[in-house]
């Protein structure tokens, strides 16, 4: 059994948040094209969300007087978000394939079965509605962020029945502390990514300031932290950068739970032991 520590991880109790991040990052490293697809499908909704947020900051206390405008913008954002759900589901399928096989995911994984997409769609909409309803509680939305990620990784298998899909989501929660630690790790990563992205733009501006004819002062105010739209875009961009890792880590979490409940982890471990014997 010497030197088998890594393999033994499959059945050991060491299945903490860091393992999810490690395995997730490893999977994302092998899914460059799928990560691109995830970003491309998510971009329109993220831009619209940033626009909605920036308008809200501009309107401030008068925002409630522009209900029709805000509702139209909210529905546009939601429509774009529906497209991003397909990208998320395709990415999760590719991620699951990468966790099970060394081969690159086939393009056929792009054809997400209608049942799978339906199960995910209904739970994602439910979580989204709940998120915005409970936004002012500040704590519930944080938990629902995790639920939204878990829905992508777990709910698809349940099919179009909303109750089955929600039950599947409930089964995928598993050890809550592991998810809390994962959330904390990603909150720290989001802060780092935001600062880095901001510094990247500032560095770009500093380098470009030597170019003749460039209005450096104008760009300085556009790419400044005081500009609400820039602020929102930077945070949105940082969240987008982390999204593949977040989804991959949650997919690993769900697959670990499934393997444990079905005994598949023991079967795999036993097969590996036999192949080495």
């Amino acid at each position: 059994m010497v030197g088998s520590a890594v393999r033994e991880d499959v059945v050991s109790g060491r299945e903490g948040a860091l393992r999810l991040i490690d395995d997730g990052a490893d999977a994302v490293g092998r899914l460059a094209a799928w990560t691109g697809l995830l970003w491309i499908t998510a971009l329109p909704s993220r831009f619209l969300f940033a626009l909605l947020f920036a308008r809200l900051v501009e309107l401030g206390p008068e925002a409630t007087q522009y209900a029709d405008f805000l509702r139209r913008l909210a529905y546009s954002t939601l429509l774009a978000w529906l497209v991003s759900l397909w990208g998320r589901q395709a990415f999760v399928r590719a991620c699951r394939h990468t966790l099970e096989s060394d081969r690159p995911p086939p393009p056929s994984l792009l054809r997400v079965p209608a049942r799978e997409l339906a199960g995910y769609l209904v739970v994602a909409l439910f979580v989204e509605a709940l998120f915005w309803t409970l936004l002012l509680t500040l704590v519930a939305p944080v938990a629902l962020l995790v639920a939204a990620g878990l829905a992508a990784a777990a709910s698809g298998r349940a099919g179009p029945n909303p109750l089955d899909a929600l039950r599947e989501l409930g089964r995928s929660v598993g050890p809550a502390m592991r998810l809390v630690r994962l959330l904390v790790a990603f909150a720290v990563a989001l802060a780092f990514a935001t600062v880095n992205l901001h510094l990247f733009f500032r560095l770009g501006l500093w380098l470009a300031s030597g170019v003749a004819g460039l209005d450096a002062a104008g760009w300085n105010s556009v790419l400044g932290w005081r500009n609400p739209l820039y602020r929102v875009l930077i945070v949105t961009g940082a969240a987008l950068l982390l999204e593949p890792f977040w989804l991959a880590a949650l997919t690993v979490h769900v697959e670990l739970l499934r393997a444990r409940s079905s005994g598949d982890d023991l079967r795999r471990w036993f097969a590996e032991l036999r192949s080495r014997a």
Partner: protein
Amino acid sequence: MSCRKVVCQECATTWDGVNYCRPCLAKRGALATPRARIGAWVGWAVMCAILFALAGRTMAWSAALFARMW
């Protein structure tokens, strides 16, 4: 028995108060399954439409309220 065949009590299955033999039950099941599937999809579509409308409204409402408090 709908097919008028004589089947023992153990081999017959009662569904909606009517006894069915195995082939008849399979035929009945084949008819019922697509209906159930269509029903599930109709329920899914209605649920999605309601949730979509609710999500859009609550997004606009909560965001506006949040901006007002902020």
